[in-house]
């Protein structure tokens, strides 16, 4: 079976559509909300799910997602419980790609080989480790490759051409372009400079490029996706979910869907 990420992005490319990628943290704000929200997001037109694996020290996150990690940890969420959740998701969804997004230490603790085997068995398609740049990722790359899981690398506004060439040579699935210098949820998105940088990156790679950090509504998603293959939305959803910590899983999922709908519609206006 080919990797779901590649299959999905290739199908979108053929349809001339943009990918909507959404990020939520497993176990946030309550453990039972995650699975329900994942299925609801798929029904609302989400193409790829990035599932945050909470970490005690989420250095790249802004305050909104950092709080999501804190809530998830208070609910005893772990890398192991996240793999179990993906397995559950796969019981009724065999097509939507799931990318785990988190930090190196929980994966280190489990062991690279053990992680790769268990993640593959659970139905994980990709791994994005924020603090594992290509220089330190060789060993993990080899383990992931052996089981057909894509290692999703970040590119940033500060990435030099030399680094970018090296990174794209290792990358699979898609490239995640960090739209701004800053943490997740930051407010200083510059659409023009993203477009310029993406134009540049396109000369180095034919891999799809999704853009995240700082996308907070249909308008910004549309503006960014005009030059990208997909838009990643995270803080917007995690912030809303955090407000609903006392509500039922269904209420939380419905609120997420309300936020996603206009963004999906906005992206689809770019189709063609």
């Amino acid at each position, binding site marked *: 079976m080919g990797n779901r990420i590649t299959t999905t992005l290739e199908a979108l490319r053929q349809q001339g559509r943009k990918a909507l990628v959404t990020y939520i943290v497993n176990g946030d704000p309550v453990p039972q909300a995650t699975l329900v929200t994942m299925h609801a997001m798929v029904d609302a037109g989400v193409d790829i799910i990035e599932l945050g694996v909470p970490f*005690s020290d989420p250095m*790249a*996150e802004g305050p909104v997602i950092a709080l999501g990690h*804190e809530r998830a940890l208070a609910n005893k969420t772990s890398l192991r419980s996240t793999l179990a959740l993906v397995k559950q998701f796969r019981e009724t969804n065999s097509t939507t790609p799931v990318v785990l997004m988190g930090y190196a*230490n929980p994966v280190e603790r*489990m062991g690279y080989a053990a992680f790769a085997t268990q993640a593959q068995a659970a139905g994980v398609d990709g791994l994005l480790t924020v603090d594992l740049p290509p220089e*330190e990722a060789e060993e993990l790359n080899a383990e992931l490759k052996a089981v057909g899981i894509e290692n999703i690398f970040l590119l940033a506004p500060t990435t030099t051409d030399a680094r970018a060439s090296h990174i794209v040579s290792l990358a699979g699935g898609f490239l995640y372009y960090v739209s701004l210098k*800053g943490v997740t949820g930051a407010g200083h998105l510059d659409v023009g400079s993203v477009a310029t940088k993406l134009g540049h990156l396109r000369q180095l790679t034919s891999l799809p490029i999704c853009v995240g950090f700082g996308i907070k509504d249909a308008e910004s998603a549309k503006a960014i996706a005009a030059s990208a293959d997909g838009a990643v939305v995270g803080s917007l959803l995690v912030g809303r979910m955090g407000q609903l910590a006392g509500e039922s899983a269904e209420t939380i999922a419905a609120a997420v869907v309300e936020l996603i709908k206009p963004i999906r519609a906005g992206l689809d206006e770019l189709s063609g």
Partner: protein
Amino acid sequence: MSEVKQSAAVDYSQFPDARGHFGQYGGRFVSETLMPALDELEQMYNRLKDDPDFQQEFDRDLAHYVGRPSPLYYAERWSERLGGARIYLKREDLNHTGAHKVNNTIGQALLAKYSGKTRIIAETGAGQHGVASATVAARLGLKCEVYMGAEDVKRQSLNVYRMKLLGATVHAVESGSKTLKDAMNEAMRDWVTNVDDTFYIIGTVAGPHPYPQLVRDFQCVIGREAREQCLQQTGRLPDALVACVGGGSNAIGLFHPFLTDESVQIYGVEAGGYGVETGKHAAPLNDGIPGVLHGNRTYLMEDEDGQIIETHSVSAGLDYPGVGPEHAWLKDIGRANYVAINDDEAMEAFRTLTRVEGIMPALESSHALAYAAKLAPTMDKDQIIIVNLSGRGDKDILTVAAIDGIEV
């Protein structure tokens, strides 16, 4: 005293390797946005570290601004009481701003100046590194923002006010355990946001490469002086070195120039908190396992899911779940021994040194003193221990008074 397991073949000057690794430790585990900034810093440092003008400027500042060399003082009365080895104190407490931290901030401030960046950020635990950073920023006319855990802001309030007087902005960090590790997370978030104009002065030998290397190099002045002073005063090398280990900068500064002196035993003292067996401590080399945090691979205090756990130490400067990667490596190859001293033992050493020698040590340094007090009686009277007295205890007076139930 015959347990040195050093393999004679190790060439310590070759570490870290080109990618910042000390064996399996160290490295550069940060998000992509920061990688180019670290490459730049590394290139600049490699250019400047062998530049005689840069070295001269550094040495001049250490001599005339910091007040180096710091004395190596024979604590005769204390040694006699303990009834064993002669204990010499390397008096980093007499440096300008009151601790070894300033050696490093002087060096990194020079790097900041050469880099053309206009803004300095720092993380701090006890506040000594924050004060030292605010100090060099004031002197260079640079803007300075310091991140400090809200818990530490409370227990080191004197240093918070010192930083403010020096013109720095202090951010109390409310996330996580509200101590040094959370301050470091927040400083990293600031840096990734303001990487174009900001120089991040890391206060210890941790963080992504090249920080563990350059902080070590700046702190090695401690060990170089101590070695020379010991030879001058006693005609021989010491038998043992003792230093406290938070991130490990004062310790590596003392240890590194002695690594090839095989007869010298090396002891790093971690914070045992309520006791290593209680789990409430800050002693990753005694009771941790290797993992990745704050840009490097090293020993960490973490749970079975790889989450970093909360630490405890009476001393804010040692209250950190990780440790510099070079110490992790020195432990594994057996060149240095890492032991732990509990809160109450450190408090006792604080009181003893104050009364017996008229020197009030920082609570961090008191951990090293407490271990030396255990070690000295097991050694002969003609043997020598050098203890790194990394800082003065004025900043800790409110903590000590609170333990005594006194309101100052």
